[in-house]
């Protein structure tokens, strides 16, 4: 790669928005299913497990895509602290979207539950039955879910900040394939979203 790309690759963008929807749905399913005593508990649980495995597979694919297609650099004029926060939060998101399904799978294994993805499709246990391991994994699964949701809120807030306040093309680089103006001295450049002027 001799030229610096200014937008995310198409596979990266497709994976990002697909997974954004799936992970957000997953977080709401998770927090809802552990609280509700209604019939929703059962069907949310039935979605939660196969969806978790789907997210795990997509996250691995996404990591491969990201390593093959480095993301566009952040604007050169972005304050160092914000750059650091951006990098850390992204790696946290990657870590959590891979860890959460694995922890869920390990937790059910340790709890002695059959890991059923459907009525008859069963995944093998990845840990021996151990109630103490279950307790720690289940606690971690819940705590990391809250952390993932908070990271999502920060991520969404930051994306909107880039798109609405800084208008520096960072949001656009994930929304569409249009190159952003690479000149860094126009942080307040009038944004173009989906080909339409924003003002």
């Amino acid at each position, binding site marked *: 790669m001799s030229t610096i790309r200014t937008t995310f690759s198409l596979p990266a963008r497709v994976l990002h928005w697909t997974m954004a929807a799936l992970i957000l749905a997953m977080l709401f399913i998770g927090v809802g299913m552990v609280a509700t005593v*209604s*019939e929703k508990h*059962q069907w949310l649980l039935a979605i939660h497990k196969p969806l978790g495995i789907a997210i795990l597979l997509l996250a691995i694919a996404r990591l491969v895509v990201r390593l093959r297609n480095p993301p566009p650099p952040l604007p050169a004029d972005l304050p160092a602290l914000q750059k650091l926060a951006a990098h850390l939060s992204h790696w946290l998101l990657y870590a959590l979207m891979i860890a959460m399904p694995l922890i869920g799978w390990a937790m059910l294994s340790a709890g002695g539950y059959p890991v059923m993805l459907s*009525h008859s499709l069963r995944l093998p246990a990845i840990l021996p039955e151990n*109630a103490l391991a279950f307790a720690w994994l289940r606690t971690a699964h819940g705590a990391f879910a809250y952390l993932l949701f908070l990271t999502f809120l920060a991520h*969404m807030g930051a994306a909107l900040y880039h798109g609405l306040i800084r208008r520096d093309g960072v949001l656009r680089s994930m929304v569409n394939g249009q190159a952003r103006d690479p000149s860094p001295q126009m942080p*307040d450049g009038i944004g173009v979203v989906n080909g339409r002027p924003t003002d």
Partner: protein
Amino acid sequence: MHDPQPFSRPPRNSLRWALIAAAVVVAGGAFAYVGGWLTPHRLTAQRLVDELQRNGGGVHPGYRRNHAKGVCVAGYFEGDGKASAYSTASVFAVGRTPVVGRFAIPGGNPYAPDGSVPIRSLALRFNLSDGQQWRTGMNSMPVFPVATPQAFYALQVAGEKDPATGKPEPARLAAFFAAHPETAAFRAWAKTAKPSASFVTESYFGIDAFYFIDATGQRQAVRWRVVPEATDAQPAPASDDYLIGDLRQRLASGPQRWHLLVTLANPGDPTDDATKAWPNDRTTIDAGTLVLTSEQPQDSGPCRDINYDPTVLPAGIALSDDPLLPARSAAYSDSYLRRTSEEAHVPGTTVPTHAQPEASR
């Protein structure tokens, strides 16, 4: 692209900031709503277990929040093939499936006297050869007092013990029963039920309805129960702890057997109401024999770490629309998380003292 007023950013930006804040608040608020934090009066699994905990006399770390006093048993189920016409579950084919079970009495107090309630329970986990499982929690009464989790919660609240007398307030319970006529069948049973002297002489009812699914995908509504071969029911002795001693003595003299009877619903029989028994003339299949061969204390036995969630089912058995089933699953999971977290010393939980180990067993 050509903003005529490039310097009018501050007021617009405040609008944009407000938009960003609104997006974050709406997303966070929706999450909190779904989690039940904004609706303190909505029944959640956690609130249900909190109430069971209160009724059990507080937290007994490491113990189940209901049916806290119990004993592990092990053995096998010998299928006779008769239920295989209705369910593809391998447990019903001719042959043996290993079982880890647990006898218990209801209530959250692990030191309650055996005679404090006329109800006994039996939970079973069948480990099928294909790695699937069937878990069931059964009770020694044919019907449940209430049909919904909300009514069950209200029953727990009505049955809270008066700190002065240590007993539920009769007027509150009477008011609950008056407001819940669906409890009639259970109350009729309770009127004549006496605490049994043995776990082994009792029948245990699955109470909730389920579906059996055959090889063609046909669904048949069913209820199951296990009926003992032992018939020498005796009046309960006066002491507080006799059930586990009796069980140990009987198992020492040989395996104890029950028949798994599966009742097939007729069209129209209710599957969503555990307070209503199906008529006696319904076809019943003897699906095989449950053989229990050994017992172990619950604080070290293999049943300790099992959550007998009745919604863990193998292919060939499916949930009905009984509203108690998802509530049981959700509440049992919360109870399981609490007690295993206590054993694991997860911060924020009460470490079990084991000051009163069940040495008497």
